[in-house]
């Protein structure tokens, strides 16, 4: 809903909307109609791509939206697209930015403009999804122009201005627009936007490439190998360009003010005219802090606030000018440059003041609000009072400190929840015997008796009602004897089982980010082996190592998993496949089948869900020729337990891969209690066949055709809200293609079952 467009004093008409920072970033991108967006979902920036995808399904723009295999891949897509001569857009946060990090200097050093929205968030570890500035401050020195958007209106305005700044011929640099995760990204605010997209497009003009990798008349070499003595000259060019952008930014800000009526300066100075003490602080916290400035001003105290709109290039002249008469300054950073005696801005401000004649500003560095810790008006007031104290005394008694950290309660001891599970308690229920023909047989696979097995994950986890992950994990673990060490990739399973200071895991658990779980567990496995070899751990100590990932974690983390498979470490990789990135709000993963709707593959008149077929992860691992690969489903628990027992045995030889289909009632839009019939249908329609591959020999464990139970894929799709549209006439082509692909893969599998050489 938008208010009627208003035209003011000869300027183009603007419309009032209520949108979050993420939504308004997407709105600006839609108005610009970028050529390409390469992206990968990560909280809290995901909504930018989601909003654009929903708009695309309705035909509101023609941006080519490319989901990367991870942020590194997404950044590669963006780099490639930008070499090909068009406008490029991306959005990410925190570890997404860090995963893309290597590409940032490539983009700037080879001088291809693009716009990257950084929805700022704490970087791991430990994993924290809330807003701080630890991501953007790490990226600050990668050669990108960096604009700081303090609220939703600024997110819009800066997104409109950013391409114009970066594309200026004297600049040709990529631009980051950073705004605060959750505080700005998720808060709905009143925003004025241009009523007509064309106004934005005219303001920017057409994209003018300086280089194009697809201009066949002018062949070029992009990204040559360049050592000394040349590289320093490339860097000098780059430095000159970002210094030149100083004036370009001012020019574009002025042009935009003329167009929109909204003024931006390199540095916003709030009530600084006669201020003796000030707070230097960025983005949303600065807006909150203005309330404290007003309150202290009412007491007659001469305080003010400094909030830069641009941090790269650092507005050194403006900062020096505003600090001319300031005696006491607190620079508050929502991150820490560990060991650097202050956060990024504190160090920058101190450097700006260095050697400035006649300046008497004393600076205190404060680290506040990290990991998203709330920032209140009272906090800002306390910082301003510190600044006043510095101004009064002329000395900084505490030059560097954390603001708002808590020492804890010394009398508190966390309560014990469980005794460690002993080897004996976890053993003796299941045996794997090898027949004279060399086949493995599993004994003791009786569900009732297996209720005695201590659960390795305890109750109390925060998964959604009906979640399939914990059904799969529990059932699988019933087949595993003895000690287990488990590693979870980032994802729903990880987030809901650990939320500090709580954990649902009763056995030792490790988390690593989902680019890297398999590599991490490889390290654990090998250290265990080496310490055993050195006699540091008893030789007879046995641990089964299991890595758990979602199908999403196995998009971004596929490389390290294949690496682990090729090295054949003695471990099990379990992939719970819930068909999407459910932890970030059900975006498409590569395992999502053709035509299905997710928040980044919407169904609408201009887009019929996901455009490509589902990834076959089990076959990828089979092609790695590991000892054992299997698929399991909760509708056949005894099959799953049998395969778990075999998996444990095969993990004595090398790597095992297990794929579990896992219902997500929320994303699949199904009734929570209906899991078993839906999973059954997925198996019976041969979308998710149950089979195992032992040393390259494939066996189908349940053949619905043979049992007369094979059903068309529609019997699976009809149960789920996310796929109901596929039964509509307009999706018939997608439905037919999906059915044909499922049939093709099933026939192929049957041939493999028949022939041990396939």
């Amino acid at each position: 809903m938008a208010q009627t467009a208003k035209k003011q004093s000869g300027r183009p008409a603007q419309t009032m909307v209520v949108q979050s920072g993420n939504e308004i970033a997407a709105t600006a991108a839609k108005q610009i109609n970028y050529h390409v967006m390469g992206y990968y979902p990560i909280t809290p920036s995901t909504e930018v791509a989601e909003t654009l995808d929903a708009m695309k399904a309705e035909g509101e723009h023609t941006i080519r939206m490319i989901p990367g295999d991870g942020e590194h891949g997404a950044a590669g897509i963006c780099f490639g697209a930008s070499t090909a001569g068009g406008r490029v857009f991306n959005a990410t946060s925190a570890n997404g930015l860090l995963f893309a990090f290597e590409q940032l200097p490539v983009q700037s050093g080879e001088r291809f403009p693009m716009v990257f929205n950084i929805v700022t968030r704490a970087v791991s570890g430990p994993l924290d999804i809330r807003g701080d500035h630890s991501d953007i401050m790490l990226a600050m020195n990668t050669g990108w122009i960096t604009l700081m958007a303090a609220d939703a209106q600024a997110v819009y305005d800066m997104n409109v201005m950013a391409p114009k700044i970066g594309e200026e011929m004297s600049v040709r640099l990529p631009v980051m627009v950073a705004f605060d995760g959750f505080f700005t990204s998720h808060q709905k605010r009143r925003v004025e936007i241009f009523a007509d997209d064309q106004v934005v497009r005219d303001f920017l003009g057409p994209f003018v490439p300086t280089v194009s990798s697809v201009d066949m008349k002018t062949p070029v070499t992009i990204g040559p190998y360049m050592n000394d003595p040349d590289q320093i000259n490339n860097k000098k060019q780059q430095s000159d360009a970002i210094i030149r952008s100083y004036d370009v930014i001012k020019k574009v800000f002025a042009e935009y003010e003329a167009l929109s009526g909204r003024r931006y300066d390199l540095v916003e100075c709030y009530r600084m005219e006669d201020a003796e003490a000030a707070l230097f602080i960025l983005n949303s916290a600065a807006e909150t802090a203005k309330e404290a400035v007003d309150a202290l001003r009412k007491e007659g105290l001469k305080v003010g606030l400094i909030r830069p709109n641009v941090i790269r290039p650092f507005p050194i002249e403006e900062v020096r000018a505003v600090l001319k008469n300031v005696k006491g300054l607190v620079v508050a950073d929502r991150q820490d440059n560990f060991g650097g005696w202050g956060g990024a801005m504190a160090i920058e401000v101190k450097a700006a003041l260095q050697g400035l004649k006649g300046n008497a500003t004393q600076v205190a560095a404060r680290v506040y609000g990290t990991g998203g810790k709330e920032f209140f008006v009272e906090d800002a007031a306390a910082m301003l009072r510190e600044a006043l104290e510095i101004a009064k005394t002329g000395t900084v008694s505490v030059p560097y400190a954390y603001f708002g950290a808590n020492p804890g309660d010394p009398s508190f001891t966390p309560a014990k929840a469980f005794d460690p599970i002993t080897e004996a308690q976890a053993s003796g229920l299941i045996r794997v015997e090898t027949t004279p023909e060399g086949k493995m047989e599993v004994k003791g696979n009786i569900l009732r008796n297996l209720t005695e097995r201590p659960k390795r994950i305890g109750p109390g986890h925060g998964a959604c009602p009906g979640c399939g992950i914990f059904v799969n994990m529990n059932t699988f673990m019933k087949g595993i004897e003895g000690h287990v060490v488990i590693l979870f990739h980032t994802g729903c399973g990880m987030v809901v089982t650990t939320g500090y200071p709580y954990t649902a895991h009763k056995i030792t658990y490790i988390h690593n980010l989902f680019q890297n779980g398999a590599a991490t567990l490889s390290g654990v496995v090998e250290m265990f082996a080496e310490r055993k070899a050195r006699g540091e751990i008893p030789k007879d100590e046995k641990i089964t190592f299991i890595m758990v990932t979602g199908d999403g974690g196995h998009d971004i983390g596929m490389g390290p998993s294949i690496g682990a498979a090729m090295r054949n470490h003695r471990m099990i990789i379990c992939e719970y496949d819930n068909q999407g990135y459910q932890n970030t709000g059900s975006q498409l993963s590569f395992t999502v089948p053709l035509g299905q709707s997710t928040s980044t593959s919407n169904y609408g008149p201009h887009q019929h869900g996901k455009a490509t077929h589902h990834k076959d992860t089990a076959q990828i691992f089979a092609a790695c020729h590991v000892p054992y690969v299997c698929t399991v489903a909760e509708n056949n628990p005894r099959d799953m337990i049998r395969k778990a027992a075999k998996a444990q045995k095969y993990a004595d030889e090398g790597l095992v891969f297990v794929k579990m289909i896992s219902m997500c009632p929320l994303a699949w839009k199904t009734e929570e209690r209906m899991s078993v019939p839906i999973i059954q249908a997925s198996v019976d329609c041969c979308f998710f066949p149950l089979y195992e591959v032992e040393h390259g020999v494939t066996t189908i464990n349940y053949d619905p055709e043979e049992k007369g139970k094979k059903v068309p894929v529609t019997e699976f799709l009809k149960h789920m809200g996310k796929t109901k549209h596929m039964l509509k006439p307009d999706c018939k082509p997608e439905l037919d293609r999906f059915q044909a692909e499922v049939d093709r893969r099933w026939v192929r599998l049957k041939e493999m079952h028949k022939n041990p050489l396939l």
Partner: protein
Amino acid sequence: MTQSGKAVKLPVKNDLGFFEIRMESIGGLGANVAGKILTEAAIIGMGMNGAGFASYGSEKKGTPVKGFVRICEGDQKVRINSPVEEPHVLAIFHEALAKSVPVTAGAVPGKTVVILNTRRTPAEARDFLKLEGGRVGVVDAMEIAMATGSRVNMVMMGAIMKAAGFYEWKAVEETVLAQFGKKYASLMKSNMEALQRGFDEVAFGEFPADGKFPATPFTREEPKLGYETAPIGGTIYSVGNMRFKDLSTSRTGTIPLFILDKCTRCGECDITCPDYCFVWEKGKDPKTGKDGMVLLGIDYQYCKGCLRCTHICKFGALLPSKEAEQDMDKITVKHKFLK
């Protein structure tokens, strides 16, 4: 200015010029959407300014969530970003939350109108929430939502509008239409009916701060483990301590009921339960007298009411039941975790 051209005045404001609303809910009841609509209606439909946001984290369905709305007059800027602590309207979407979350924190008699989704009377609601005093509204949002084919959030929004006093019907209606109209046009009638009934049927009581219950000021809680006491690196030594959590607030009215006589101890329920609620023990089978694993019952502290088990049990030993009709303390069987 409203669409009719009148400037809307807020009935009351805090020191920073805002009328503030806080919603206490669980993921899945639509508090976030309600906040969005209440914000947008005030800004677009009534010419005011404001902000709408929530207590974001990685909240899953059924976990506690807070929604915030801040409204000010149209010419004022919104600068503050911190959560609402002492609201003018405090709407509690899910009464079971009061067991595990300090939902009434910051409710100030004379300032805050508390609205509870409940079957209780205002006086019973005041006692249930242990409110110091003030204006308390009750509405059976679950019942109205079911009757109208709408959702709890629409009913609660109607009640919030009544308590707030300044919302214009047309502005809210148009925002609801803009929110759902395109995708869920068929639900528009149900939604408007639910909104109207929430507005009409919320019943208020006024209670003096008579000392019956103490004040519930908002406190910014700090964790017990801090930089001097927490193990370095974030390592947790108290393994499995999520068992101390009470997840019963995730339920929205239904539970599985265990009928011991029908149980064959097949073990299927222990497979299908994602929340590990079934309590098994070594013992004598009540039917055969043989030694073996025996199902004693359900630990409802962890049951989120997904009803998977009622679907999987072929023997009728697990049946869906209304939680309100059961004495939960009596039917729950606790896990024995430590020897």
